[in-house]
């Protein structure tokens, strides 16, 4: 009897666990899960999709403004701006969420803009919260800005309307010219965690057209329709005093995650000479006089730049040797009585005198930026990294002596070669 029962149970088990039936059961289970999706609406409608997030500190409170994608037949209304405040960043974001009535989705957030106040206070906690908790992609472009946060966001949202003009593109426009080429959260992190703890960020300014002397970048018809006035959280930039954003090439330097100083475009360009990625540039030399030029002002365009950096040690003195070889062509020549030889187009006008002048100019520029670095104690040129990687032991010993002022004891050797494009 018992055996019979056993075989019966076995048979039953077999019939239940036969592969075909198992698949059937599991398929039914999945179908059960399918039913709820019948009235599941598209995720882009249940989540507020943020394309840009601005954070600043206003009167001891964190203020957040976000550009949220909103479906609409009117393309101008696609980017709506919402803002909120709170004691912490989390509260501020939640207040925006509350106002919209949707959860915020940051996966499409391509720009993080940080206001002046938060920059001076330190940005690391903001970045950490946004990337870790809110899952902002670490390739989001980082920008610092001046001016009112809501106005700024609104101005950027208006930029988005014209698809060819977008803040992230403006900021990383032509990376050959601007040092902060890949100024995203990831590179900022890498900079922050490196021994010199240096981060770079583009600085974008906000102002009225009068302030900028009508150097408009974009945002022609801002205001009127783009602004959303949801509850009390958001304020549209009024139609009357239009605000514009402008990128004048200023770069904010961050040390230990805090705003340290601003570099002007001129300084950035000088620093760029040391950066291999920044290939292009111009050199302006004045009063060139020889058999071709007659007290001329010559603008030379750099076509190609090769930089080799060799950190070495000579009896405990670190030597930072930079070889720059330039391929140039002459862009503009400004002189009062142009010599007739200039008419001969095929001739190479890169005369020795001009070359000497270029070298001289370049070297002074480079020396100036080194001086700038030494004065401000910022290692813009990656000197630490080069020495650490290539002359590790000696450099560590040297660091023990010098500490923070290590830039001062280094001997800088600069050698420049100039070639014509032909």
């Amino acid at each position, binding site marked *: 009897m018992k055996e019979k029962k056993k075989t019966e149970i076995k048979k039953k088990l077999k019939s239940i666990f036969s592969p075909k039936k198992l698949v059937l059961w599991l398929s039914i289970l*999945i179908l059960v899960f*399918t039913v709820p999706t*019948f*009235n*599941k609406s*598209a*995720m882009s409608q249940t989540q507020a999709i943020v394309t840009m997030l601005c954070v600043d500190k206003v009167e001891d409170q964190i203020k957040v403004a976000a550009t949220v*994608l909103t479906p609409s037949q009117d393309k101008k209304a696609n980017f709506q701006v919402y803002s909120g405040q709170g004691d912490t960043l989390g509260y501020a974001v939640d207040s925006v969420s509350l106002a919209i009535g949707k959860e915020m989705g940051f996966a*499409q957030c391509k720009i993080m803009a940080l206001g002046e106040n938060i920059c001076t206070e330190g940005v690391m906690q903001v970045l950490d919260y946004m990337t870790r908790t809110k899952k902002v992609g670490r390739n989001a472009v980082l920008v610092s800005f001046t001016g009112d946060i809501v106005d700024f966001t609104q101005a950027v949202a208006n930029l988005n309307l014209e*698809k060819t003009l977008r803040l992230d593109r403006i900021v990383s426009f032509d990376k050959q010219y601007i040092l902060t080429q890949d100024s995203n959260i990831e590179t900022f992190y890498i900079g922050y965690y490196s021994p010199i703890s240096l981060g770079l960020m583009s600085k974008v300014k906000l102002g009225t057209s009068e302030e900028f002397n009508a150097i408009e970048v974009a945002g022609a018809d801002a205001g009127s329709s783009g602004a959303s006035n949801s509850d009390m959280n958001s304020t549209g930039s009024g139609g009357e005093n239009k605000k514009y954003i402008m990128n004048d090439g200023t770069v904010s330097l961050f040390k230990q995650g805090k705003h340290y100083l601003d570099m002007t475009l001129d300084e950035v360009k000088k620093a760029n000479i040391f950066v291999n990625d920044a290939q292009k540039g111009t050199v302006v030399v004045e009063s060139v006089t020889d058999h071709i030029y007659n007290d001329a002002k010559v603008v030379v365009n750099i076509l190609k730049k090769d930089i080799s950096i060799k950190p070495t040690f000579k009896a405990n003195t670190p030597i930072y040797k930079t070889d720059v070889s330039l391929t140039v062509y002459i862009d503009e020549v400004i002189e009062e009585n142009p010599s007739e030889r200039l008419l001969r187009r095929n001739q190479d006008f890169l005369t020795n005198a001009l070359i000497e002048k270029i070298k001289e100019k370049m070297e002074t520029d480079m020396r100036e930026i080194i001086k700038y670095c030494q004065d401000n104690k910022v290692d813009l040129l990656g000197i630490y990294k080069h020495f650490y990687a290539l002359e590790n032991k000696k450099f560590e010993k040297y660091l023990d002596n010098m500490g923070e002022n290590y830039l001062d004891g280094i001997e800088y050797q600069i050698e420049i070669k100039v070639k014509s494009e032909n």
Partner: protein
Amino acid sequence: MKVDAVKTLNEIKRKLHDSGDVKSRTVQFFGTQISLCYIAPITDNELLNNTLIYPLINFSDEIKGKDIVDILYDKVLANQEVTIFTDLQSAVDKMLAGNTLILVDCAEKILGCDIEKITVRAVAEPPTSVVIKGPREGFTESLKYNLALIRKRVKSDDFVVKMLELGKMTKTQIAVVYYDSIADKEVVKDVLKRLNSIKIDGVIDSHYLVSYLQRNKNSLFKQVGDTEKPDILVGKMLEGRIGIIVDGSPIVLTLPFILLEDLQNSDDYYTQPIRVTFVRALRLVGVILAVLLPGVYIALELYHYKILPTEFLITIMNSTQGIPFSPFIEILFVILLFEILYEANIRMPQYFGMAMSIVGALILGETAVNAGLVSPPAVMIVALSGITFYIIPGQASQFSILRLLGVVIGATLGIYGILLFCVFILSYLSNFDSYKSAYLAPTAPYIEEDQKDSYMRKTIDEMKKRPRSISNNKENNNRR
């Protein structure tokens, strides 16, 4: 058996339940009564008069002492295909197949003369496989004609035709054709065994045999190849396949079948190899689009907005805004609409179909979009996937089921589910071996020699060996 011209005739008529189309004629032949019995619709009247009755009446040779049946067989009907029957049943069976029975009074045997009237439509280009370049002949419903079409192309003593008769009620003629030296002997044996073991009332079309020939019953996937063109059949036989021709069906079955066959087209061998490689890649992309596109779309909409580029997301958001249905219902609705249109379109008379497709596809789709019932992307995506079905027409029916499954899975689980679905299908098909051939060969298992004619095609002169992907006689592997 003793034949009595009148009695036997009556017996035959009784056997056939006095069917109205059984006719008989009686003539006198040197004093002996001879009855001719035939089934009128399948007997050629002219032939009957010219080759049977006329010689019988006009015969004037000496017949002294000779058996009349012998005289008829040797002399009168010497130029006819005549069979001698000794029992009535087999004679009647033959009569049903178009023979005219000659009943000689007092004789021991019955003579049967084949003067069957073959009604056949003209050999035309089959609508299912139209080619731009290449032969335009297609099979017809007559087994005899079809064999003639093949024999016309094949003049080798190696070519074998094995005739079978299937169907208790229909007694349908079936021909199994193959090359003796190329086809795999075991496969031939297997196929013949399977065919012989079939017990069925009637075989009306060749597809009646499919379920007896396939290994995995209840499977969605096609396991037996079919073609409507003699050139394709010969091509396939030259690779070692076996053809099964059924009388009354223009579609010839081929075995063994691998998935790659549907990716190939007879046109491929008549055009440039580079173009063919491109087209085959296109077909592969077509398969993926046809099956997965709606599923991926619904998954993107329901779960993965973060994958989409922002501009694209805005476009989709704007166009799907204000649709009253949820995305899943919406896409199901559109698919349903398209399937109905498709089904209606095939069955509709041709002159009607044209107008219908315009009304259906254009106006219905347009109005649905304009009315805000469905969104333009949904219509576009379902339409695109629907069109790509017919880039591989042989698989279209399976694709439409797979597409539906893809949509359900995409809506439930998103991209992850679709990926698992793909792996599942690949894994399912990997185990689909039948007749000693792997279903996904030469990709899985990878067969290097056969890559010459898989996703790319080399020139004909480079294809020196027969494909190893399908079972054939491995020792006789050289094509020349």
